[in-house]
């Protein structure tokens, strides 16, 4: 178990490093940053001045190593746009995105798992079909459009909840629903298939042969085994949701990391873009690492090997 975790951590760290290289290269090679920053009206001299000011005239490897040296000590440089360091901006915005992601995940888990269990127990009945419809609709719904629809219905027409901002918990309800619904179908389906598979298994028959109550058979014996892959998926989905928060935050004007990234992208504020991409990738990497550890912890066959 110890070596297992150690190896995974090593892989995770090297993946993080690779991503920092790839995203750095992609940003620096897919266009001329100096021209983009200077804007369409700038003269050639201005562009050259920016190139020198921002160190963009240096060889790209040097630029990367400079950046990496800073990044290792959480120094991502200065924002081109805000009068602030990149780290301050990120620390400032991160809580909102994490709250949004956390609430959305909690919502998704608390809907998808009971629904998946119910669908499996009531296989091929209208309950199952309804659950499947719920999943299929969620998979096809563009999240930005779903968010706008929620605003029109619940914020404008019914006026139950605020449409924008991040002042209180009410502000997180609609965005969390929009983001959480995106993660629900996959978890619901995985719970359902897992339960169906487990319910057919020999050990469930053994549990029933012991005369255990239906509740104990379903929750103690079946769900405990069916849930293991769902836990791993939940961690991965949270990673995806943090990455996808840029859409939801822009729809609901939530001032989180996603909004920061989008603003930075439209303002050619590359140090911020670079840092946010890396931070979100890091979250994903840590989450998948946790998913693997959780998987091993939940499954005695891996844990006690």
């Amino acid at each position: 178990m110890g070596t297992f975790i150690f190896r995974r951590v090593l892989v995770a760290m090297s993946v993080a490093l690779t991503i920092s290289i790839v995203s750095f290269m992609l940003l620096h090679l897919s266009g001329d940053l100096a021209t983009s920053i200077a804007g369409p009206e700038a003269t050639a001299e201005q562009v050259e001045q920016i190139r020198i000011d921002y160190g963009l005239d240096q060889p790209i490897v040097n630029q990367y190593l400079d950046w990496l040296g800073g990044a290792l000590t959480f120094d991502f440089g200065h924002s081109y746009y805000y009068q602030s360091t990149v780290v301050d901006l990120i620390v400032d915005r991160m809580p909102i995105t994490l709250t949004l992601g956390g609430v959305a995940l909690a919502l998704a888990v608390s809907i998808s798992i009971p629904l998946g269990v119910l669908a499996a127990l009531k296989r091929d009945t209208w309950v199952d079909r309804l659950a499947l419809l719920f999943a299929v609709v969620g998979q096809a719904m563009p999240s930005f459009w779903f968010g706008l629809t929620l605003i029109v219905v619940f914020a404008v027409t019914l006026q139950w909840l605020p449409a924008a901002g991040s002042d209180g918990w009410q502000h997180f309800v609609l965005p969390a629903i929009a983001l959480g619904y995106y993660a629900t179908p996959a978890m619901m389906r995985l719970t359902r298939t897992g339960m169906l598979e487990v319910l057919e298994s020999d050990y469930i028959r053994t549990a029933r042969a012991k005369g255990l109550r239906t509740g104990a058979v379903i929750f103690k014996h079946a769900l405990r085994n069916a849930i293991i892959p769902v836990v791993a998926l939940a961690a991965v989905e949270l990673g995806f949701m943090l990455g996808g928060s840029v859409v939801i935050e822009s729809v609901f004007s939530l001032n989180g990391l996603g909004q920061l990234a989008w603003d930075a992208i439209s303002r050619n504020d590359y140090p911020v873009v670079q840092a946010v991409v890396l931070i979100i990738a890091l979250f994903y990497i840590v989450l998948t690492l946790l998913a693997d550890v959780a998987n091993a912890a939940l499954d005695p066959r891996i844990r006690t090997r």
Partner: protein
Amino acid sequence: MSRLEVNNLLEVNNLLEVNNLRVDLPVEAGTLHAVRGIDFHVERGEMLCLVGESGCGKSMTSLALMGLLPRKARLTADRLQFDGIDLTTLPERRRSDLRGARMSMIFQEPMTALNPAYTLGNQLCEGLIRHRGVSRREARDRALYLLERVGISAAKDRLEQYPHQLSGGLRQRVMIAMALMCEPDLIIADEPTTALDVTIQAQILRLLRELQQEFGTAVIFITHDLGVVARIADRVAVMYAGEMIESAPTPALYANPAHPYTRGLLSCIPAPGKTPPGSRLQAIPGVVPSLVGSVEGCAFRNRCPQAQPACERTPPLMSLPGDHRARCHYADRPVPAPLQPEMSS
């Protein structure tokens, strides 16, 4: 007193009474009649062997007794009584009070019959805690005692182990201990040795027989191997194509098999000293008829070496001397000689 009540009084001593048990399964092509009206009983403390090839309905019979049939299966019976309790009308909740407490089951596949997520101790104890309301401590003591009793060394450490840490033979011993936890009146063992190595098989068989005699538990032992039966069973019931075609005390069945199928099965077993080395073991030619739809006449006649025109009619269950019954027109009389001798050449 009506005749039915008299019957009830007379037969109340039998632990299990089964009359005309049928199990139907809906399948794509129609209805599969897995069990087609079988009658048998189990006396207290006896070991009854249910023998038959795969698909003959013996597993369905055991699941029907336990109330563990697949959801889509339909069960009907004129009588299905366990210790005087009518199982056909018993609500599921009361039924689950019996399961594991008064009747328990050992399955064929020890590798998959235990939940991989829980320790053996946990899985051994939960039935006793559920049925007897004992404390975890008391349940553990009982589990420990039974683990030692089924021949597991270092039983205390085993309680903390998970199923994957044990071999198949050990797991089956755990399953046996689990079945004994609540001191049931009846244990149904569905091919408990089929998935095990031959040497382990013999150990498990001996163990089951010993425990059965020690605890006075009745056992229905299900197997496809007639060789196993001779060593352990008090009585044998042979199933074929969803019917019970012969039942008798073990010695009588071996001495005087009355049904051609039983005779065929017996000739498949190599007997030390009797079967000459190198000689071919006999196999019964032909295939079992499909149980989807209805079966007319004797189900065995297409494979029977002595089939007669009379076999087109469904044979009755004939009673022979000494609690011996067989479902064959010719169980109690010789097969008529062929009418046209030249055809036999």
